[in-house]
Structure formats: structure tokens, C-alpha cells
């Protein structure tokens, strides 16, 4: 089991979290302008990196917030976490 450092709540067991897959996949701003291949790229194609991998988690059984985390997919070594939308962990009650 992973020990995940929620940027809002601190280190907690993996079982408190749900996985959101690869991070930084932004929804296209002009969806009607996309070709089928570009849609396939957005919806389905993934980096699936071996090694350092930026992913997103949600603290389902905790604060309920989404955040990003860099993790090594070979060693499971836990890297830096990040937050979405400009919220600063310290600024959030």
C-alpha cells in the first residue's frame, strides 16, 4: 500500500484515496475544431510512463480534494505533490 501525502491533510494510507490517472490532460478549449484523431489523443492515448509519472488523486475518504503527485512507477517512490486551481494548502481552512 502506498503512503500518500495529501497536500491538505498530510500522509495517509492509499485506501483513503481514489486514483485519477495521468495528470495535466486538459479538455480541449475548442472541441468542435478537433479531428477524430485529436479526440482519440485526448480521450484515450496516454503516456503511461515507466519511471517518473505525474498523476492525480482525490482524497475521497478525507478532505475530498483533488491534487497531483509525481511518483516513480517502478520504485513507487513518492515525489512532490501539487494542487489545482491556485488553492494553496495553507490558505485552505
Amino acid at each position, binding site marked *: *500500500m502506498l503512503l500518500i501525502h495529501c497536500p491538505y491533510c498530510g500522509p495517509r494510507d492509499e485506501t483513503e484515496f481514489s486514483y485519477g490517472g495521468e495528470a495535466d490532460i486538459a479538455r480541449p478549449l475548442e472541441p468542435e475544431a478537433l479531428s477524430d484523431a485529436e479526440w482519440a489523443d485526448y480521450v*484515450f492515448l*496516454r503516456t*503511461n510512463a*515507466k519511471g517518473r509519472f505525474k498523476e492525480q488523486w482525490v482524497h475521497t475518504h478525507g478532505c475530498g480534494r483533488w491534487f497531483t503527485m509525481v511518483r516513480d512507477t517502478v520504485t513507487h517512490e513518492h515525489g512532490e505533490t501539487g494542487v489545482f486551481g491556485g488553492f494553496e494548502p495553507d490558505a485552505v481552512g
Partner: protein
Amino acid sequence: MQRYSIISLARNALTGHRNWPQAWRSPAPKLEYDVVIVGGGGHGLATAYYLAAEHGISNVAVLEKGWIGGGNTGRNTTIIRSNYLWDESAAIYEKSLQLYEGLSRELNFNIMLSQRGVLNLAHNEHDLKEMSRRVRAIRGNGVDSEILSPAEIKKLVPAINISRELRYPILGASLQRRGGVARHDAVAWGFARGADDRGVDIIQNCEVTGIDRQGGRVTGVQTSLGPIAAGKVGVVVAGHASVLADMAGFRLPIDSHPLQAMVSEPIKPVLDCVVMSNAVHVYVSQSDKGELVIGAGIDSFNSYAQRGSWHVIEGQMGALVELFPIFSRLRLMRSWGGIVDTCPDASPILSKTPVDGLYFNCGWGTGGFKATPGSGWAFAHTIARDEPHPINAPFSLDRFTTGALIDEHGAAAVAH
């Protein structure tokens, strides 16, 4: 190749079994092959075998970074079945099951196929309705499947608990009598021996580190034993498909996850069919050695680490002892993990790629073992003819662009 038979067994017994020939050679790689297969698991070896046996292409190398059958082929729970919902899936998995049924004879190698039946349990009203729909669809495709009542399940599997007091009571099951298990190592070894006999070079401890291309066409591979030129390259690397695709300059719709399996201490015969439950999420069979072979779901996160989390094992053990209270005092002997490449629609990819002469067979998720011969058979056709066989044409990479997905998430039951 020395044929295995009762006579060869008796003859070798007279010399204390010291003179059996090697089942396959260990040649040094040649500088060039017509076809290089990357990955010496069951699917890769089957591909090489059918290239030689069905298409007359024997100037073939199978490159394996470790030892053959040492990846997911040797780590799965050996379940074989073809009871899939969609027509496309039924065609390829049923082709595979039919090849399995003749495989020991074809390969002159006992793969220990045991068609002991596969039970898929239903635990609620929705499960029952879904199962009824699925069984009708399966039978419509000419694949055997039937529905059992709890009493019939109890007769077939006396150790199971059909009490209505369970949190998730057993309300029914579908049964594929032709389903069962086989010896996973033997499948790899049998295909290896058959391929080698037809001239295929099986090269172990040879890791592919690059895919050479020129003008949009594959020209060979870089390996830990040096460059090898190839007219065509087939990549069959469960757990590392995205890594190999990256070497060839494209991405796949695949995420890699750990999947664990485990065995109990050996006990006397208690379970003579395969039991799978989608809702409480566990599957179990008993090996010929007496061990219970147990598996369940993947870890949620992406990983290449070949190990999974303890809480996943705890969950499936809870499910197992609820279904089979008498297993509660058994000890686990071993658990292990493999890396499975999962597709968004829980169906595999057997396809041409953006690179000419480069073919990928991947994305079998948690259920590739049952497909080993059919997958190799269809992939060999795809490589030999440079076009898919009708049986694997629906499993192209293009489906993620066209939207013609083959959604087997629910239909496959847990239950790969």
C-alpha cells in the same frame, strides 16, 4: 525434434532420464531475420509458431529480455474460457479455446488442459438479469453456456456457501463447461519447442532497447546483444507495450497496472471447477498439486513494479472465505504480481501501427492467458499478410479514433 510418447518415455527411463534432448536450441542471434518477435511469452511464442506452421515463415527470431514464459505467462491463474458478450470477443476467444482443445496433440506437448468448467456467480437481481442476457448472447454465438440455480451450484461445488444469510448471497451462476485451466508454463514451452523445431530462433536474455525505422518503415531492433535487422517486427510485450511504442514514436491507449495472484498450501481435492465472482471480486481454482490458485483485481494506480498492495489481497480473501468458509484456516504459501496493460474498453489490440512493418499485440489486460493460441494465430496472420485476419480486424488501434470500441468491462465479468 524427438517426439514425446510412451515409447520415448520408456526408452529414456532405461537410461535414468539422462539423455533427453534439449526441447529448444539457444542460438546466438543472426544479423537479420524476416520477422523479429519482441517478447517470449506465450503470445509471442505462439505467434512465432503459427508464422512457421501456418504461413511458412521460419526465418524468425523471438527476443526475450528474461527467460521465456517468465512474465505474465508464468504469473496468471491459468483460467481458460470464451464466454464473452460481444460477437468480436466471442470470435477470438472461442477460436483460442478451440485451438487449446487440440493443442497438446498439435504440439506433442502435454499442456494439461483440464476442461473442468468455469462458474461465474451472480449475487443480486441485476447480476441475474445481466447473466441471463449474456448467456443468451453467448449461446447465440455458438459458445456453450448455461445457467445454474443455487441448488445446482451446490451440487457441483459442495464446499460453496449458498446461505441466503450472506452479505452477498449466491443467487445463480453461469457455467461454461468447456472452460477450465491449463498448465501455463507448458503452453509457453510447447509453443517454444514447436517453433524451434520449425527453425525459429528463440533468444533469451536479449532486451530490445530501440526500434529502428527508416522512411516510416521498420528496419530492425536495437538489443542488448547488438542490432538485429528485420523485415517486420511484431511486439508482444504484456506489461511494457507503452514503453515499446514510445521507442517507435507513438502512444497507446494503455495504462499499466499491477495484478496479483496467490496460492494456498496444498490440500486434498476440494474444488474441481473454476469459481469466479464479479460482485465480491475473487476467482479460485485448485491446481493438480492441491494448492488453491486465487486472484482478483488490479491495483488502481499505474505501475511497472510487479508487486501489488496488501489491501487488495485482504479484500479478495474476505470474499473468498465468505464464499468458502472452510478455506478460512488455510495459509497462503506465495503471492506475486505481474504488470497488465489495460485498454479503455477492456479489449486487446492486435493491429498494424503508424509504422509500416511494425505490429503490436497488446492490451490484454488481466485476461490474456486464455487467448494465447488464438492471439498468436491471428497475429501471425496479421504479420504474414500485412493485414489483419477478420477475427482480429475489430481489435485495431483505429477503433479508438473511429469509436468502434468493444466494451467488455461488464461483459467479461470479473473475470478475466
